[in-house]
């Protein structure tokens, strides 16, 4: 668990703080996304967790203990770190890059080598093909995979990720996001994730902290609650006018409570149960029908516009 207690940061030679009296908690095993417009202090906030930046006021507790209890370098070796520009060491092979923190911690060669191979496979790169290459021989997407693998190398309980999928095209980004969420289901790290993209925040976050100019915490809540109950004008406009649709994109048709079909369903459009409700709505509108048929567990069920509307009005829809 990470706890911010009245954390402020004012840079030298400036009289206005970039981070202003932040207090919030990130529960263990969750992804907390820091999101906001540029200049909102989200990266500064993240970098204060591993003390790349020291706060001017307040403190940050990790597992109940102040993060100043040990030296900055000791602390950083226990916290994964991945950034948008990746920052792979160009003069080191992929294996050596991933082994950076394990070798700082003095792991045995055999253990390190096994861990490197395991991580390469985990992020979808064949270890035999990539282990001995140099970063310049990899595509941008492959380099970002290596960057994430390197951050996870010593199995740190906490990871800091600053737009870790920012340097690739949208299609690759979506794949990397999905893969990472898949990995996170198993590893359950406590993750501080920085992005400027609200869609990425909604997709990746268990919790979202929306920051605004001057480093104020505008709202801290689950994506569902932020979308259904934005606290302020600022949050509402930041999440966008399509927030109802965004919320529907958090749910899958298969998870909806739908009535069974009572005959007469011929001619109705078929909707895949894996679709998000938002995509299903789009299909319904496209087919010109107000109802569709969803097949789930061998049973046919009816998806209606009314059901979707009801869902969009519900205050507290639960996530999958």
């Amino acid at each position, binding site marked *: 668990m990470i706890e911010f207690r009245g954390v402020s940061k004012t840079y030298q030679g400036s009289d206005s703080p970039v981070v202003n009296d932040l207090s919030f908690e990130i529960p263990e095993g969750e992804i907390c996304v820091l999101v906001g417009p540029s200049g909102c202090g989200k990266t500064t906030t993240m970098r204060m967790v591993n003390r790349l930046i020291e706060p001017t006021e307040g403190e940050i507790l990790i597992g109940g203990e102040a993060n100043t209890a040990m030296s900055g370098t000791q*602390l*950083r070796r*226990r916290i994964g770190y991945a950034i948008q520009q990746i*920052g792979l*060491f160009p003069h080191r092979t992929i294996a050596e890059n991933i082994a*950076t923190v394990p070798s700082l911690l003095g792991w045995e060669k055999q253990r390190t080598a096994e861990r490197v191979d395991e991580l390469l496979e985990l992020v979808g790169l064949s270890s035999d093909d990539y282990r001995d290459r140099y970063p310049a021989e990899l595509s941008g997407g492959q380099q970002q995979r290596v960057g994430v693998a390197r951050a996870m190398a010593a199995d740190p309980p906490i990871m800091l990720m600053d737009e870790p999928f920012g340097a690739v095209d949208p299609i690759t980004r979506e794949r990397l996001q999905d893969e990472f969420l898949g990995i996170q289901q198993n590893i359950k790290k406590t993750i501080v994730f920085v992005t400027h993209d609200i869609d990425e925040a909604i997709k990746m976050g268990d919790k979202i902290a929306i920051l605004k100019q001057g480093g104020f915490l505008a709202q801290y809540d689950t994506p569902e609650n932020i979308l259904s109950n934005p606290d302020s004008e600022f949050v509402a406009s930041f999440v966008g006018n399509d927030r109802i649709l965004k919320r529907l994109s958090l749910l899958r048709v298969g998870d909806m409570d739908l009535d069974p079909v009572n005959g007469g369903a011929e001619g109705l459009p078929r909707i895949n149960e894996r679709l998000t409700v938002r995509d299903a709505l789009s299909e319904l509108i496209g087919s010109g029908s107000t109802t569709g048929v969803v097949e789930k567990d061998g049973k046919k069920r009816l998806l209606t516009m009314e059901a979707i509307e009801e869902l969009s009005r519900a205050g507290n829809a639960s996530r999958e």
Partner: protein
Amino acid sequence: MSSLALLLQDLSSIEDPRLVEWDWISENFWEDIVPAIQGHIYLSFVSVAIALAISLPTGVLVSRYRKAYPPVTFVTGLLYSIPSLALFGILISIPGITIGPTPVIIALVAYSLLILIRNTVAGLDAVPAETIDAARGMGLTSSQILFKVELPLALPVIVAGIRIATVTIIGIATIGAYIAGGGLGKMIFDGINRGFPTMIITGAVLATALAIVADLLLLALERYLRPWARRRRT
């Protein structure tokens, strides 16, 4: 100017028109030529080594404390622009410094500083900021970042500087014979004094060959130090 006139006069007074007497070369090979080559290598190598020992730490410091860079460049640039013969003259006029290899080495070191410091700083500057940030974020200490990340990445540029400095030094070292520095320059001066072109040409050809060989060896080293750049994504 007068020395050049004298040289021309000496050369024109040569009676034997054969420029290279191979007999002289074979007769004096082990006695004169090899020691001259060794002496020249010694002068150049020691000078580059000392210059490097000064320039590397200076370059690292200057790249950290940027304000010091302009004055350092100014001073070393000034040294670099002093004519070599004048610098030798100035050095031997300092009490405590007698003619011989010492003032020559001091001068050669002085000439190398500008190139070596500038390339060290340029090499360190070229290390990507995000690479250093990632290193810091993973818990490398400042000295680990310097020795494991910054210097290895800057090394090819530093070695490129060593190449230029070495070639320059091997050339200037020949003039050092004027103040009894020894090396191949002595052979050239002796040849001029005796009006014996074989010695002049042998000395000149060997000094040139030495510079070329040193350049090629360092070029190979530069390539070797950058295995990551040899392979690129296809």
